[in-house]
C-alpha cells in the first residue's frame, strides 16, 4: 500500500524531531559563556553598564528581567522556598530585605566570596541591612539609598503667600514635622481647591523611619502600641488628614501620575528616585517643582540591595558582576542617568555628585541635598514583617482619608490586624 510507508515515515520523523528537540533543550552552552540573569523591580539604570561589562568580559552574557514591585518580591520568596526559578542576581528593596536576612542559608554568603574587604565602602547602616541576624553572613551589596527631600510646587506656594526660595522653604520646617503641618494649615487657609500633600502615608512613614525605634524592637516584637514615636506620628498625620491637607492619592496609579502635572497638591516627600519619576511624568511642569530639605533633616526612603540566591549556579561570576555594578564609579554613572542616589560615602565628597543640579527643579542642588540627608540617617532596626506592618498602618490612615472610619476606629482595627501577624 502506498499510504503505509508514508505514515511510518511521518511517525518516525516526528519521533526523531521530538528527541532532537529534547536533546537540544537539555544541553548547556558549551562554548564557555556564562549567562547571568538579573531580576529587578524597576529600571536601575544598569542598561549601559551591562554593555560595558559584557565588552570587558566577553564570556559573560547578562539577561535582565523586570517585574512589578510587589510581584517581584512575592516571586522571589516563592522561588527561594521552592528552590528553583530565581535569577542569579536579584534586587531586594529595603522594605523586604529584613524578611530575608533571618534565613541567610537561602543566599550565597558574600563573605565567602570576598566581601569582607569591601566593608568600608558603604554607609554603615546600608551595610548592616544586608547582614544576617548573627552578623556571620552578608547576603547583598547595596545599590542606591533613598535619601529624602521635600519637593514642592513653587507656583502653589507663591499663590498661598509662602516663601518660594528653597532655603527659606527648608527653614520653614527645619525643626519638626509639627512645623510642616503648621505650614499646611496656613496653606489651606490661603488657598482654595488644592491640597497640601498627596497622601498621608508617606508623611507617616517618613516620621516613623526617622525615629530611633520603629515598629519593631530588637527582639522582633511589634511595638506599634508602646512606641511613643509611632503614636505621635499617627496623631500628627491624623491632624493633617482631618484638616483636609491630603489629596488621598494612591501611589503608582494613573491618577497619581497625572497629578504631578496637574498640580493638585503642593508638596511631596521625594527620595532621589522620585525626582526622576517626577521629571518623566510631568515634563510640562518643568520649573514649577523645586526641592527643599525634609523636616527633621535626615531620612531614607527606599533603596535596594543585590542578592545572590543560593540556587544560582554561577556564584563567582555573579559576585564579580554585582561587585562591579555597586562600585562607586558605576553608582555615580547610575546617579547621573536615573537619579538613584549612591550608597557609597566616598562619592559624597566627589564634586561630580555634590555639584549635581537638576534643571527641571530650577537647578536645585540635588547632589548636596541628598548627600546631607543620607549622611544624617540614623540606622533603625527593621523587623521581619516590616513592610506588612507599615502597610497595615498605612491602610488605617487610608481608611481615615476615605472617610470610612474615625481615627479611633481605624487605630483599633490596625491593632487587631497587627495581632494576626
Amino acid at each position: 500500500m502506498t499510504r503505509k510507508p508514508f505514515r511510518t515515515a511521518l511517525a518516525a520523523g516526528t519521533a526523531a524531531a521530538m528527541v532532537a528537540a529534547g536533546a537540544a533543550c537539555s544541553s548547556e552552552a558549551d562554548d564557555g559563556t556564562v549567562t547571568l540573569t538579573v531580576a529587578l523591580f524597576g529600571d536601575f539604570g544598569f542598561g549601559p553598564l551591562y554593555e560595558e561589562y559584557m565588552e570587558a568580559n566577553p564570556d559573560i552574557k547578562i539577561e535582565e528581567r523586570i517585574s512589578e514591585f510587589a510581584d517581584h518580591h512575592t516571586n522571589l520568596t516563592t522561588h527561594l522556598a521552592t528552590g528553583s526559578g530565581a535569577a542569579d542576581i536579584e534586587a531586594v528593596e529595603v522594605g523586604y530585605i529584613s524578611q530575608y536576612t533571618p534565613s541567610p542559608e537561602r543566599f550565597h554568603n558574600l563573605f565567602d566570596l570576598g566581601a569582607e574587604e569591601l566593608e568600608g565602602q558603604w554607609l554603615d547602616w546600608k551595610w548592616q541591612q544586608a547582614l544576617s541576624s548573627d552578623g556571620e553572613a552578608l547576603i547583598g551589596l547595596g545599590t542606591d539609598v533613598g535619601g529624602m527631600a521635600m519637593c514642592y510646587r513653587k507656583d502653589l506656594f507663591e499663590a498661598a503667600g509662602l516663601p518660594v526660595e528653597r532655603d527659606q522653604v527648608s527653614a520653614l520646617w527645619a525643626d519638626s514635622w509639627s512645623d510642616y503641618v503648621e505650614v499646611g494649615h496656613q496653606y489651606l487657609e490661603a488657598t482654595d481647591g488644592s491640597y497640601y500633600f498627596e497622601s498621608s502615608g508617606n508623611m507617616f512613614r517618613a516620621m516613623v523611619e526617622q525615629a530611633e525605634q520603629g515598629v519593631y524592637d530588637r527582639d522582633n516584637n511589634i511595638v506599634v502600641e508602646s512606641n511613643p514615636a509611632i503614636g505621635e506620628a499617627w496623631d500628627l498625620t491624623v491632624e493633617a488628614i482631618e484638616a483636609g491637607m491630603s489629596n488621598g492619592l494612591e501611589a503608582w496609579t494613573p491618577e497619581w501620575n497625572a497629578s504631578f502635572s496637574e498640580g493638585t497638591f503642593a508638596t511631596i516627600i521625594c527620595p532621589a528616585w522620585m525626582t526622576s519619576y517626577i521629571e518623566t511624568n510631568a515634563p510640562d511642569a518643568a520649573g514649577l517643582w523645586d526641592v527643599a530639605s525634609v523636616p527633621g533633616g535626615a531620612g531614607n526612603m527606599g533603596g535596594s540591595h543585590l542578592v545572590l540566591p543560593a540556587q544560582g549556579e554561577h556564584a563567582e561570576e555573579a559576585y564579580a558582576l554585582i561587585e562591579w555594578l555597586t562600585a562607586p564609579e558605576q553608582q555615580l554613572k547610575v546617579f547621573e542617568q536615573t537619579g538613584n542616589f549612591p550608597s557609597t560615602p566616598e562619592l559624597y565628597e566627589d564634586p561630580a555628585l555634590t555639584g549635581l543640579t537638576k534643571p527641571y527643579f530650577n537647578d536645585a542642588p540635588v547632589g548636596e541635598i541628598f548627600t546631607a540627608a543620607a549622611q544624617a540617617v540614623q540606622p533603625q532596626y527593621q523587623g521581619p514583617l516590616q513592610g506588612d506592618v507599615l502597610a497595615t498602618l498605612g491602610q488605617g490612615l487610608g481608611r481615615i482619608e476615605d472617610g470610612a472610619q474615625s481615627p479611633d476606629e481605624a487605630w483599633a482595627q490596625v491593632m487587631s490586624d497587627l495581632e494576626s501577624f
Partner: protein
Amino acid sequence: MAIATEPPEARGRAAAPGRPSPAGRWRDRLYRLDLKASPFLYIAPFFVLFAAFGLFPLAFTAWVSVHDWSLLSDEQSFVGLDNYTALLTDPYFWNALGNTVSILALSTVPQLLAALLLAHLLTMRLRGQTFFRMGMLLPNVASVVAVAVIFSQLFGRDFGLINWVLESLGAGRIDWQTGKASSHVAIAVMVAWKWTGYNTLIYLAAMQAVPRDVYEAALLDGASRLQQLFRITVPMIRPTIVFTVIVSTIYGLQIFAEPQLFGGAGPNGVTGGASRQFQTLTLYLYEHAFNRGFEFGYASAVAWTMFAVIVLIALLNYLFIRRIRSDS
C-alpha cells in the same frame, strides 16, 4: 484494504479441527487484548493529564488545608480542621464572600438580560449582520488585565472619563474606589463588558434552533416582539440559559484580576481597598497565600471552602432558573 477479522493464518486453519499452534494462540490473545484495551489507551492521555493536573492538585490542596503549612518554614504540622474554623470565624472572609456575591449579582443579572435582548435583536434581519455578530465577541478577545487597567482609568476619581461625564451632566463626581457600592458597580461593569458578547452569541445560536412557525403563530395571535421573546424564546432556550447562568456563576465567584487591578499596585490591590470594600474571595485567598506569610494551609482551606460555596450558589441558581418553564 478489506477488513480482516481474523489473522490470515487462523483463517487458513479454521477448517481443520484441533487446537491452533502456540504462535496462533499468542496472536489470538494479543488481538483480543488489542480489541478490548485500545479504546482505553486512546482516551488515556486525557485522563492521565487530568489526573496529574486536575485530580492530584485537588487532593493535594485538601491535604495541605489540614496542615499548618507555610511556604517560608520547613515544617508542616497536622492541625485537622483548625484552618477551616479560623476561616469561618474570620470577619474578613465573610466580608469577601459578601463582596463576591454582590459583584456576582451586579454583573451577571444585567449581563445575561442584555445578552438575551441583544441576541433577540440579532436574530432579526439586519444590514451587516455578520459584522454585528462578530463585533459582539470583540470585547471578549481583550485580555482581562487590559480591560481592568483601562476601566480603572475610566473610573478614576479625579481624571477619569466617567466622572468627567457625570460632572458635565451635573451629577457630581463619585469616588469609585472608596465606596462599597460604587466599587462593586465598577467591577461589575468590567466583567459585564467582557462577557456580554460571548453570552449573546451563545443565546443567538440557541435561538436559531427555535422553529419559525411558533413565532408565526404568535404573530398571528398579535404578540409583540417582547412578548415573543419572553413567552416563546426564553422557555425554548431554557437549557442554554441554564448553562450560561451556571457558567457565569462559576466564573463570577472567582473574579480576581479586575478587583486587584482596580485597587492599584500597592497594598490596596491585595486587600481590595483600604476597607476591603471590594475584596473578593480569590483576592482574599491570594492575600493569605502570597502576601501574609505565605500561609498555604490556610489558603488551601479557603480554596476548598470556595469550592463548596460555588457549588452551593450554582445549585441555587439552577433551581431558580428551572422555574422558567412553570411560568409559561
